[in-house]
């Protein structure tokens, strides 16, 4: 490409250079661009510059998440109440099936608190990933109309889910208190647990956003993958009770599952009968590791295709 334009240009300069009124007339387009500091349109900025731009849009990300959360239930009559109703109804359904009908609660103290914590923490990751899939493909209008670092989109969507989770937490705390738990200092551990989970979710959501922007079938496929993930994450039953006689490989694999780790941490923080003995070894290290791997990896992976979002 460049060689072609170069040769045509040298030819043009040699033959038809007009009487030079300015010094620019003899320059090729690329030389002219370099002289006035023009950049190639639609080129991807460097990682540091990109991060700086993204930081510059932090108010946009925050306001976007707030506005979308507010707009989410405008079509429903009960409005914002659904933010609390949805997780509550979910918990009720799973309690009916797994707690009453099947009876996995045998061997778990305070099963209601155990179950509801699991559901809410799982929902946070699940809905972040689902929102991530559509973060780019569902906002093409905005992406094509205005220029901003596209990573704002998946970040804003996981921020929305975090806000949603904080609403759910009020329900969770009420349920946990009703089931006879007493608030203590260990509840504060919820903050680092949720923070690392949010970083993990954001990283995964950015990976999904890039994949979802090209593979439009992903939104159809994801519910099945997520459901499989949920059933292996000990959301509704205690993994320890189930894997007592399993090979160590399976135990380790189930223990390093990031969702299991974040759920265990939340349960450990909130439920007194869920002791540190039930936590897998090095649990905080694993939680931090997943957040770092997914966060950094997802961010770089998303940035690599920055110039392609909204194209075509």
């Amino acid at each position, binding site marked *: *490409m460049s060689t072609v334009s170069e040769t045509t240009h040298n030819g043009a300069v040699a033959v038809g250079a007009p009487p030079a009124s300015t010094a620019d007339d003899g320059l090729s387009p690329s030389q*002219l661009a370099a002289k006035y500091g023009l*950049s190639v*349109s639609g080129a991807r900025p460097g990682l540091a510059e990109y991060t700086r731009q993204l930081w510059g*849009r932090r108010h946009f990300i925050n306001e*976007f998440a707030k506005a*979308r959360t507010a*707009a989410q239930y405008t079509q429903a009559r009960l409005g914002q109440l659904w933010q609390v109703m949805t997780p509550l109804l979910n918990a009720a359904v799973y309690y009916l099936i797994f707690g009453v009908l099947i009876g996995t609660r045998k061997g778990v103290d305070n099963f209601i608190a155990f179950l509801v914590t699991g559901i809410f923490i799982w929902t946070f990751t699940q809905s972040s990933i689902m929102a991530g899939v559509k973060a780019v493909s569902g906002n093409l209008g905005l992406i094509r109309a205005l220029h*901003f670092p596209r990573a704002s989109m998946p970040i804003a969507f996981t921020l929305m889910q975090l806000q949603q989770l904080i609403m759910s937490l009020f329900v969770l705390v009420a349920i946990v208190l009703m089931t006879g738990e007493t608030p203590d200092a260990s509840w504060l551990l919820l903050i680092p647990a949720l923070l690392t989970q949010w970083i993990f979710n954001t990283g995964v959501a950015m990976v999904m956003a890039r994949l979802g922007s090209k593979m439009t079938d992903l939104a159809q496929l994801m519910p099945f993958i997520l459901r499989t993930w949920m059933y292996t994450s000990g959301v509704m039953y205690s993994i320890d009770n189930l894997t007592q006689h399993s090979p160590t490989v399976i135990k380790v694999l189930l223990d390093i599952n990031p969702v299991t780790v974040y759920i265990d941490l939340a349960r450990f923080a909130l439920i007194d009968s869920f002791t540190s003995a039930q936590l897998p070894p090095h649990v905080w290290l694993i939680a931090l590791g997943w957040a770092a791997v997914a966060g950094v990896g997802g961010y770089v992976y998303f940035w690599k295709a920055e110039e392609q979002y909204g194209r075509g």
Partner: protein
Amino acid sequence: MAVAEQQPLAEGTRTAQARVPTVIVDDVHIVYKVYGAGTGKGNAATALARLVLRRGGNPNVRRVHAVRGVTFTAYRGEAIGIIGSNGSGKSTLLRSIAGLLPVESGRIYTDGQPSLLGVNAALMNDLTGATNVLLGGLAMGMSQEEIQQRYQGIVDFSGINDKGDFISLPMRTYSSGMAARLRFSIAAAKNHDVLLIDEALATGDRQFQKRSEARIRELRKEAGTVFLVSHSNSAIRDTCDRVVWLEKGELLMDGPTEEVLTAYEAHTGK
């Protein structure tokens, strides 16, 4: 190439000094893929058969060579009209300058980030007009104080509130003209180095067209470059001092507005 090389002769005499290029389009070809263009029957069995057989690529994808070797340079303070019949590659070229469509070969150099303003670039339909003003401004990189200062100006300019308090309603309740007016107002609130406008003026009513033409002249004075794609020759005459004529993806003519428009009108038999 030849057409573009003659260009500096005509233009150079007028503004020989202080001509700072803002957009350089260098021998650009644009090819895009259209999905769902083929004759494939749209049921599950044929879709599966296509996936399994994979014979010679997807017949549903067709390549369209929309822009063929266009070269020109735009300078600071210019307003350039882009004309041509439907399907001549005007909007495609504009989208490429904005960095939204990759070029097949050639290069487009720009000063800063050009902003494209098109009629079908929807903002967030579920959110109110007021929220869209705030979010649009923030997305363009304005600060919250800046938006607060300009908020009333944006709303007044759009004329959304002329017929009642529409700004506090979701944008999905707006008519297409109202939505386009608000989008233009949001985008025009910021001083862009390069502003690309795709038929946006055609959607508003006469009063709004006058207002936006005035705003375009203002933007040019603030040392920006404005591109305007339009089928309205009068809108181009009122706002542009230079016109690029595309036909079948090729640059047919590039020069002062009157000259090119006269030739264009002769060509279209007006």
